[in-house]
């Protein structure tokens, strides 16, 4: 496993933000480690959904549902929003719940706990 995920690239991404000024030399290393842990969490939790659906291939829809299931991933909502709710492998089962999920996504801004619970229940 890579010890450090592309520290120089991380620094570049950080500094692409105009608001960001100087960065201490060790900082990209810390961000790299945090990123590694984050990515592992994201993969693990997405894969749980993949398993639950009996799929062998992890796809974008699983990732989208994962993001919708955990508040700590709220910042990723925009990133996954363009993933269509239909069109993944098990489309048949998705059809009914997809409409509900699409509606939930639109209402998601409130961070309504009941609605996000609904999203988690759908499998």
């Amino acid at each position: 496993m890579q010890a450090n995920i592309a520290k120089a690239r991380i620094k570049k991404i950080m500094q692409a933000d105009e608001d960001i000024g100087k960065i201490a030399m060790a900082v990209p290393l810390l961000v790299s480690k945090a990123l590694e842990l984050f990515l592992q969490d994201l993969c693990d939790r997405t894969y749980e959904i993949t398993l639950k659906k009996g799929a062998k291939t992890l796809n974008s829809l699983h990732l989208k549902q994962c993001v919708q299931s955990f508040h700590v991933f709220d910042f990723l909502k925009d990133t996954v929003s363009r993933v269509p709710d239909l069109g993944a492998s098990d489309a048949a089962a998705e059809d009914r719940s997809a409409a509900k999920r699409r509606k939930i996504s639109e209402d998601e801004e409130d961070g309504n706990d009941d609605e996000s619970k609904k999203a988690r229940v759908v499998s």
Partner: protein
Amino acid sequence: MEPMDIVGKTKEDASLPKATMTKIIKEMLPPDVRVARDAQDLLIECCVEFINLVSSESNEVCNREERKTIAPEHVLKALQDLGFGEYNEEVFAAYEQHKLETMDTVRTGKWSNGADMSEEEALVEQQRMFAEARARMNGGPMIPKPADSDSCPSLNS
């Protein structure tokens, strides 16, 4: 100053090396699991978003303390504020390890940054990047950056 800094930097220009990330993602999952191509790309985008998120928050912590340079402790506080505080133990451990390795460099004079490259390879890589930058400045074609670990301290200032 890295050669790539000479080229105009937009958020789109700065992404993570795709091949490296693909490999990492594969290693994070059980061996028999396949990842759809669009999911790969999406995961990488999520990573970039994470970096942006942590950067912004770290920057805010830094500003609140009226400091000019984002420091490690700002990152740790940011992670906590964002709900990723459980990472802090390992992140801090990595930081401590890095400090030890940096001390070794000073003491023994060896290039020990934990990277895969030897000093010779790192110098070659550096020369190559300077050559690319020169070519770009002379109006040469854009040479795509290969996927690599990019972890040489001397290029990081």
